[in-house]
Structures are given as C-alpha cells and as structure tokens.
C-alpha cells in the first residue's frame, strides 16, 4: 500500500522520444491520432503502416512489449462489442468457418478495433516517455487555460493520496470483518465514499490555507524551466504527423478507388 502512484505511467529512459519536449510530443500524438481516425476502413494496408510506425516508436523509446500489451488490455471490453458486430450489422453475408457473417460488419469491426488500438498505442508511447509534470508544462506551453492546468496538476498530485486513503479505509473495513459480496454492501461502501469526500474536501481547504500562508495569490507561480524545443525536435514531431497524414491521404485515394 502506498508508494505506488496510480497516475504514473512514465518509464524512465534516455531515448530521442524521452528527450523531446512535451509540447512537441503532445502535438505529434494528437496529430497522429487524427490521421489514424480519418484513414478509411477500406484500406487495410494503411492500418498496417500506422501500426508499423507506432511499433517503431515503441522500439525507439525502448518500451517493453509486455508493458505495451498489458496497457492495451484496457480495451478488452470494447473487443467484445466489436466481436458482436459481424453478427448484427445488416449487409451481404460471407461464409467464415460455416457461419454467415456480414461483410460490412467485419470491415467495421476491423476499423473500430484498429483505430481504437492505434489511438491507445499513441497515448501509451506519449505517457510512457513523458513524466506527468512535463506533460502539464507542455500543455501550458500550448496555451491551455492556466486554471485547467492548475486543477489538473492538483488532481494528479492528490489522486495518489486520496486513493491511498481509500485503500486504508478498505483495509480498516476488512479488518473489522466486512466482506462486500452483494448489493447489500452498498450502504457501508457509500458511507466510506462519503467519509472520503469529507476528508478530501477538508484536505483541499487545508491545502488552500497552507498555500495562502505561503503567499499564493490566485495563480500558480510559473512552471519550472524546461529546455526550449530545438528546431530539429519540432521537425521530428512534425515529420511524424506528415508521415501519418501521407498514409491517410494515400489510403483515401486507394480506398475510394476500391469502392
């Protein structure tokens, strides 16, 4: 208990991607995900190309394959939904292993899974190569409203504490013989949740008073200095988006001619 930060997917390293300033990486990730989303489903090879690019990025960042796969497991519930599509989408049927499956259903299920997986992989690479604080600094450099950045930094800083407190309360419940098995446990668990809220809120008030005592005047003092991005790093980030866009545009051409 404790020590494990719930919101810390960062993997320390020294790759080109780790060294790149956060704002470049955020722009590149966002741009690349848009490219993935606008790639038409009919061009299957394009998703292979996107996958190749992202696997290359994982390799450049020296991310362990097991780690990436474990984080991808997040979309398993979605997999079940996509697996049902070939059975329920109307359209011409094709015979696969003796079962009549809908052809557009198969295509759309593939498109859905491919896009969700590639989008998630992009975020995994981003989050694994960028510490949380740098991500916030990057967002600040990208001119996000300071209020949102400040709230997000508070949330990231205190989420670990609040979750730890919740786990301590769970240990306390269990040590008193409470075993949640059915809906009847709702009252007890909700009471814990209410107590957790009161403690979080009071912590917020205490933190606020402590901040006032140290001269807080409504805005957080400027972010710690980070290295300004060098032109080559912006070029690299931009090149990635251009690569994704090139794949998407080519796929659009071939995908439409295939229709």
């Amino acid at each position, binding site marked *: 208990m404790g020590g494990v930060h719930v919101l810390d997917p960062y993997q320390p390293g020294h790759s080109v991607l780790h060294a790149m300033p956060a704002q470049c990486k955020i722009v590149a990730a966002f741009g690349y995900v848009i490219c993935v989303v606008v790639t038409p489903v009919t061009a299957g090879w394009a998703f292979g190309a996107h996958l190749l690019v992202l696997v290359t990025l994982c390799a450049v960042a020296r991310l362990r394959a097991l780690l990436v796969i474990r984080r991808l497991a997040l979309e398993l519930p979605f997999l079940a939904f996509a697996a049902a599509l070939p059975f329920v989408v109307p359209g011409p049927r094709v015979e696969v292993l003796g079962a009549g499956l809908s052809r557009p259903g198969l295509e759309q299920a593939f498109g859905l899974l491919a*896009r969700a997986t590639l989008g998630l992989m992009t975020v995994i690479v981003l*989050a694994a190569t960028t510490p949380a604080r740098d991500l916030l600094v990057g967002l600040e450099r990208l001119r996000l409203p300071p209020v949102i950045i400040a709230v997000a930094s508070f949330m990231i800083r205190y989420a670990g504490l609040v979750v730890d407190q919740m786990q301590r309360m769970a240990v306390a419940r269990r040590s008193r013989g409470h075993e949640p098995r059915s809906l009847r446990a709702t009252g007890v668990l909700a009471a814990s*949740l209410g107590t957790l809220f009161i403690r979080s809120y009071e912590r917020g008030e205490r933190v606020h008073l402590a901040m006032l005592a140290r001269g807080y005047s409504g805005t957080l003092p400027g972010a710690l200095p980070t290295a300004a991005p060098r032109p080559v790093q912006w070029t690299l980030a931009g090149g990635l988006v251009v690569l994704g866009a090139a794949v998407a545009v080519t796929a659009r051409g071939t995908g439409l001619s295939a229709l």
Partner: protein
Amino acid sequence: MHIPDGFIDAPTSAAFGVVAVAGVGYAVKRAGEENADQLTPLAGLVAAFVFAGQMLNFPVAMGTSGHLLGGVLAAVLVGPWLGAIGIAVVLGVQALFADGGLTALGLNITNMALVGAVGGYGLFALARRVLPRRASAVVIAAAVAAFASVPLAAGAFVLQFALGGTVDLPLDGVAGAMIGVHCLIGIGEAAITAATVSLVLGTRPDLVYGARGLHRARDLTVRRLEPAGAAVPTGQGAAGVASAGTVGLAPAVAGAGGPELADRRDDRSVS
C-alpha cells in the same frame, strides 16, 4: 465506459470538441464567480475524489461489480460548475495518461461532464422544487437525478452516434440497448449517490452544495464559562476542554480557553 478513438467520425468529434470547450469554459467562469480564490485546490481535490471514487468497486451479484460515474454526486456535493470541471479534468487526464481516446475527448466531456453533471444537477434542482424543503428531500432528489442522468448521458451518446457513427447499426436498436442498459446502471448510481449524500448531509451538512438553503450558519458567540475558567489553572486544560465540550458549547470553549492557555505559556516563559 469511455468512447475510444474512431468510434464517431472526425467532423462530429470536432463539433463536440467545440461544445466541450465552450461548456467547460463557461463552467470555469461560473465556478470562479462562486468561490474565486478557492477554485483551484477545491476543483483539484474534487477531481481526485471522483478519480478515486471511480476505483471503488461495488459488488452487484455473482462476482460482477460496478463503479460510480459520479456526475450527479459531484454536482450535488460541490455544485454543478465545480463538479463539471472536476469530471472534465478527470476525463482529460485519463485520456492523456492511460485510456486513450484523444480525439473522442470532446464527446466524452460533453456526455459525462456537461450532460451528466450539469444536466444531472438541473434534474436535481427540478426535483428539489417539487419535493418539500427537508433534508430527506435532498437525498431523494439526488437519487432521482443520479438515476435519470445515466440514461440521459447514454442518450447524448446515441445522438452523437446518429450524427457520426462509423458503424452501420440500426439506430433504434442502438438507442434501445444503450438506454436500457444504462437504466440498470442508473439504479446502482442512484443507490450509491443517495447513500453518500445522506452520509455527508449527516456529518457535514455545510459541505453539501445542493442543501445550501436548508440550514443557516450559526453566529460565533463568545461566552464566559465559570467551570472552564476554574479548571484550567489546576493544570487540567485538556480535561477542562473535554468537560466543557460535552456541554455542547464548543465555540465558547474556544473563546474562553484560548486566552487562558496563552496566559499560562506567558507565565512559564517568565519563570
């Protein structure tokens, strides 16, 4: 369950991104008017609380479990604007750190923060107007709003799906399944929200935004109490406070006990 990338097409996602930015911007403005200087720490802690609350699993039956969505709970406890900011920040941080769905962020914020929390609070206010002005009515109104907010958010998703779904499913089927399933989820949401609001209302009623009109803050009065004053010089300061506290005059103790303790410290420094 969040919408992942590519489930809704790019133009619709972009349009709802604009909706989300406008909505959250308005929420920041309104929340800033309500509690100007406390906004940042409180919204941050509310976001952390919602994040933690979503990790708490409630057992349903036969090994399955569900968790809270928290829109109406946050809105009733801290107000719709602060609640919406909290939920939007949770969604944004999750999208950037773990869950993905960067291009679907606008859709998710619209459904859960704007429709779920702000819309849910609208339902809560409506239910409060119908029900009598009592503390129990706050709990009932919170339960009704929490129940209705979940299918309402699912309805917003169905609208987005109708506008730009990338899958050819019959719309009435999707609408029926989504809203039906979310009505069931809403029952759980209502139970958790009602029980949590009821507990906070019992212990710290002043913290419940949705029950602001129900109680008046008591004025702090300073009263001299003979027993407390007599107990302190015997070196039983803590006991004096405890015995006075059981009489139920905590503000008076703070008023009468404070100077006494300070005087004693002065005496010691002199001797």
